[in-house]
């Protein structure tokens, strides 16, 4: 049998690193549908899963793929799908169901240009807001944004851990640059990889209430076939999981679904701060664009400019406390993103117009070059 964790150094692609990260995290079920630029993840899973005792199924569409993942997760198997924006558009129905039935699952979205079919083979970061609230209703999810092939691996593991810990669908929001780029990936030994598993019930079946949360606002999760005989529904439900259509049931459920994320923001969020301590100019960038921004910031620093980079690694929930620290000496905040302005709104919410927040959008399928980005920064601050 092949090894689930391919410990060692390899030169590989971001999409493949995401697949290997999933396997290292314990993922043993993948359902998907072909879509550029995420297909390599499905291809890797189709090859790898049956060889390590897992299962791959190619479904008839993305709705079915996401729904099968929820079914598999409820059957006790760590499960994932991977797609791009058009696929997420279809999956959003089931993402709502997964939120409502508190399903641990991971979705990798390798973002391409939209709207609609858009630019399938080009890079984009235009699904930032879709990830947050693409489905209807009040809810919170977790989304992580990798900036390297290594992070495709590391953050996919982290996404599984967070989804298991908080029983919430978790996104790896990669852009096509990171999904398709090839660089060095270091896969650590299996026993050095931190794995988090969902909480299991500690009470006998007759006492088990499937949606009664503990103090951390997360309920322990039984799975099908364990004899708990529980029921789960996308309808508003009580602690027994039974549908209830009154105000009290909605009040007891929906705020908890949001608060289990909102009140644990400090346990979830992660950001990288580079040269921000004395930075008068703060660049905010993530994913593929953060690599450009890093070069631009380092080049400008070498020329004596007091400039720093804030890179959110967790984008939802947004690492606002980290941003406040990064921006503490800033006179200008510049948000460079491969879209026409999405995360900039969240940055403005945190900065609250105390200092000017400038958007540097780019919607044309390729990232800025460091020089181009620096010109855009200069144009806004000089």
């Amino acid at each position: 049998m092949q090894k689930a964790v391919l410990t060692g150094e390899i030169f590989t692609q971001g999409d493949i690193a995401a697949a290997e990260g999933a396997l290292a995290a314990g993922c043993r079920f993948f359902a998907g549908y072909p879509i550029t630029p995420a297909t390599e993840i499905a291809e890797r899973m189709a090859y790898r899963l049956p060889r390590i005792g897992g299962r791959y199924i190619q479904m008839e569409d993305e709705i079915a793929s996401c729904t099968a993942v929820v079914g598999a997760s409820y059957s006790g198997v760590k499960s994932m799908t991977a797609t791009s924006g058009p696929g997420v558009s279809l999956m959003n129905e089931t993402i709502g169901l997964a939120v409502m039935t508190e399903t641990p699952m991971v979705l990798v979205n390798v973002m391409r240009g939209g709207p609609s079919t858009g630019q399938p083979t080009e890079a984009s970061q235009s699904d930032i807001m879709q990830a947050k609230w693409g489905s209807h209703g009040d809810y919170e999810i977790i989304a992580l944004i990798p900036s390297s092939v290594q992070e495709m691996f590391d953050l996919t593991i982290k996404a599984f851990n967070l989804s298991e810990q908080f029983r919430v669908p978790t996104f790896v929001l990669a852009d096509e640059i990171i999904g398709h780029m090839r660089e060095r990936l270091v896969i650590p030994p299996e026993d050095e990889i931190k794995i988090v598993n969902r909480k299991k019930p500690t009470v006998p079946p007759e006492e088990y209430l499937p949606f009664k949360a503990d103090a951390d606002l997360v309920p322990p999760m039984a799975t099908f076939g364990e004899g708990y005989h529980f029921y789960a529904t996308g309808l508003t439900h009580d602690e027994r999981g039974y549908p209830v259509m009154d105000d009290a049931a909605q009040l007891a459920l929906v705020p908890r679904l949001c608060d289990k994320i909102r009140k644990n923001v400090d346990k979830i969020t992660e950001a990288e701060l580079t040269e921000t301590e004395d930075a008068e100019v703060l660049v905010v960038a993530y994913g593929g664009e953060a690599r450009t921004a890093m070069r631009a910031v380092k080049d400008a620093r070498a020329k004596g400019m007091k400039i720093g980079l804030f890179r959110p690694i967790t984008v939802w929930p947004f690492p606002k406390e980290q941003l406040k620290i990064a921006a503490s000496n800033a006179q200008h905040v510049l948000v460079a993103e491969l879209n026409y302005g999405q995360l900039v709104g969240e940055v403005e919410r945190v900065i609250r117009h105390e200092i000017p927040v400038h958007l540097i959008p780019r919607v044309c399928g390729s990232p800025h070059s460091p020089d181009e980005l620096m010109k855009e920064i200069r144009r806004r601050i000089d």
Partner: protein
Amino acid sequence: MTTTPKTITEGEHPILDYIRRDRLPHIFCSACGIGTVLNAFANALRSLNYDIDRLVVISGIGCTGRASGYFAADGYHTTHGRAIAFASGVKVANPDLNPVVISGDGDLFAIGGNHFIHAARRNVDMLVLCINNFNYGMTGGQMGPTTPDSAITVTSPDGNIEHPFNLVSVAAASGAVFVARWTALHARRLTKSIEKALQKKGFKFIEVISPCPTLYDRYNRHGSGLDVMKKYRELSVIRNFTDPMKAEIDYRTRIVCGEFVDTEKPEFTDLLAKQAETLQQR
């Protein structure tokens, strides 16, 4: 919520051990056929002494969509049309589980039609019980993919002009290994077919024609639920192994019932396991 089979005491309903007692009374209208089908399903479980721990009852949205919430087994109520996709995930992830989908004609064949044909094509092991009442009941009686020619519904107020699906024909053409049709009148024959299907591996489909006295049958002046059942008795003919394409369903002439397909074909999760085993030995 454990279900330990116990001796039935006098006056206690024999299927109560299979039902979530704390969810009774159910939400279904008086004279609706859903209750009959759930009763038949519970009776089939009881007569087979079925392993409830391995059963997962799954449904979509609509009147029949509520069915999964009444059994003392693991149950899941998906979004509209997705019960079969969910069941595929369950079966592939853990082949020891036995998913049973109970849902309506609109859920399974309009919004969920794509999932139905592909799960049947793959021959994923599950039983699909479709309660066909010819309309969308939960939302107030709109036309759907099974609404007969000229029938009156709230969204076909001048008579339906769409051609309906013949569900057993769709199931057989898509690759189901067991296909049957009964009406809510045929409670015993339905129970026997469910028993047979539960013991068979692969994608099994049973359609149950059901009265909707509150909406569909009222708009079409079919009389009371009892009148509809009388009409079923008058119109039904049993033709086992008839060509599903020719298994007509016409409230004016006849309703052909019976077990139309009972065949063998390699099951999807068995094939997956076999392939994986070979690969792992390499």
